[in-house]
């Protein structure tokens, strides 16, 4: 085989700059494209609601079909939190404070984030694969050719389903987590029930619960937008569909974490403004 000639340092540096430049430009183009996709979705959402018969199957898929897995996730998060916190809190003699730490972590952070992660895998990947297959088999083109806007017909119902039902499922995950945490702490570890609930009630407020649910609206919107966008821009073939489904989950997960950090900082700032005294566990 013919060997490629050795390249000089300057030429290699030039190639590196070109490659990185291409990556940066492609990234900016993708973000811009996703932004336009979101704007078109919101524009259709505000001007014309989808029909009931297109909404209901999506609500069923996102909501009803995800219930068991979300309930199971929530229950186990609550129990795992109890297991992990118990040892440390016992050393400090603060076992009765377990209710506060379990329920606070659940409703503010772990419930919304883990429910959203689970849903990004279950709902987001399925959406990307379904829309990707429709793109590859020209079904999206067929929709356009019949005078139906694919964003209005395919994306808006999925966006609404995620926006409405992911926060609802988060409430479900929170509830099951509280039940799971209570069961493990009180029934298995034998902590006093009265103190468990008393501390929970004292430290976990409505603000904490609402801040978790508030975040889940953004998680739902992010999952729907990323998944639908990846499906719509699926490359041809089985490999393209598989890649769209994987990318939908990975990008949704990364975005969920980024949104969580950003909103976490913002919510803490709001909390500190209104309740500068705060509450201490000890």
């Amino acid at each position, binding site marked *: 085989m013919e060997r490629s000639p050795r390249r000089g340092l300057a030429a290699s540096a030039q190639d590196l700059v070109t490659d990185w430049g291409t990556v940066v430009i492609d990234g900016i183009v993708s973000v811009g494209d996703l932004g336009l996709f979101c704007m078109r979705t919101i524009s259709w959402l505000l001007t014309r609601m989808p029909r009931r018969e297109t909404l209901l199957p999506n609500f069923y898929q996102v909501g009803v079909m995800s219930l068991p897995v979300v309930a199971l996730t929530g229950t186990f998060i609550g129990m795992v939190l109890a297991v992990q916190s118990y040892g440390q809190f016992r050393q400090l003699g603060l076992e009765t404070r377990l209710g506060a730490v379990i329920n606070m972590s659940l409703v503010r952070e772990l419930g919304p984030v883990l429910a959203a992660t689970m849903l990004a895998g279950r709902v987001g990947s399925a959406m990307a694969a379904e829309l990707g297959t*429709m793109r590859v088999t*020209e079904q999206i083109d067929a929709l356009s050719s019949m005078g139906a806007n694919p964003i209005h017909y395919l994306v808006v119902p999925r966006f609404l389903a995620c926006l409405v039902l992911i926060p609802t499922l988060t409430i479900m995950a929170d509830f099951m987590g509280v039940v799971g945490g209570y069961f493990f702490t009180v029934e298995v570890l034998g902590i006093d029930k009265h103190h468990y609930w008393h501390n929970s009630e004292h430290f976990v407020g409505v603000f904490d619960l609402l801040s978790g649910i508030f975040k889940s609206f953004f998680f739902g919107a992010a999952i729907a937008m990323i998944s639908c966008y990846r499906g719509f821009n699926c490359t041809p073939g089985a490999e393209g569909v598989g890649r769209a489904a994987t990318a939908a989950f990975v990008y949704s997960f990364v975005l969920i974490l980024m949104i969580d950090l950003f909103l976490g900082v913002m919510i803490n700032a709001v909390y500190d403004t209104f309740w500068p005294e705060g509450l201490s566990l000890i």
Partner: protein
Amino acid sequence: MNDLSTATPEQPPIVEVQDMRVTFGSQNVLRGVALSVPRGQSLAIIGESGCGKTVLLKTVIGLVRPTSGVVRFCGYNLAELSDRELTRQRVRFGYVFQNAALFDSLTVGQNVAFPLRQHKSESPSRIRELVLARLAEVGLPNSVISKKPAELSGGMRKRVALARALIMNPELMLYDEPTTGLDPIMSDVINELMLRTRNQHDVTSIIVTHDMRTAHKVADRVVMIYPVNRLEPDEPQLIFDGTPDELKACGDRRVLQFVRGEAGERLAEMHQASSDREPQS
């Protein structure tokens, strides 16, 4: 070659393509294409696989936006229409996709009724009546109405796609390789259905095909597209424009080669490519 591309002043062409270029990334698919289709005509666009026939068809309905040039439908420049206006104009088209592109999640009846439900507020009984009439027109029994597309054969799927495309009484029918992948008998059934559609509904048809039987049977005008990478820099991409009968008498070797189905210099190119690879391996 007769002048089939010229429309009368009273009747402007239903489709007009002017100096159109389409590129995907660095790949040039269509270059300097000019085409005018008068109302009522059945035009067959022929050419080898990958020459840009389907892309040309998709630019006519606005599914692919040209890189430069103008595509007009009934005088409207498609590039200047907003998303919503384009959506409104598309009701006047009927598009039969290469692999039928039926919605997997819907039944045959729901597929055929889809455009009606989108654009008209007919009662469910009236919609069912219209769907059954269209299915009967393409020779399908009432029993298919509740089946899913996956349960149908390739020929049946194509006929359902034709019924769906016809349900809104379009002015322009676009067929993308309507007989590809079908047995000769089913191909002829589809050809007959295209002829019947044209006679019964007074529509203009554009048929993308590489099946010469379809071109001869259904079309009254044929244009041939040649791949851009095989053309000389200033050569037009439409290398033939005439009636099906004129195809056989055409002096262009490339057209005759396609009509007769001869590999010609492609065999020599294939041998050259494989001999170039041999020393490396």
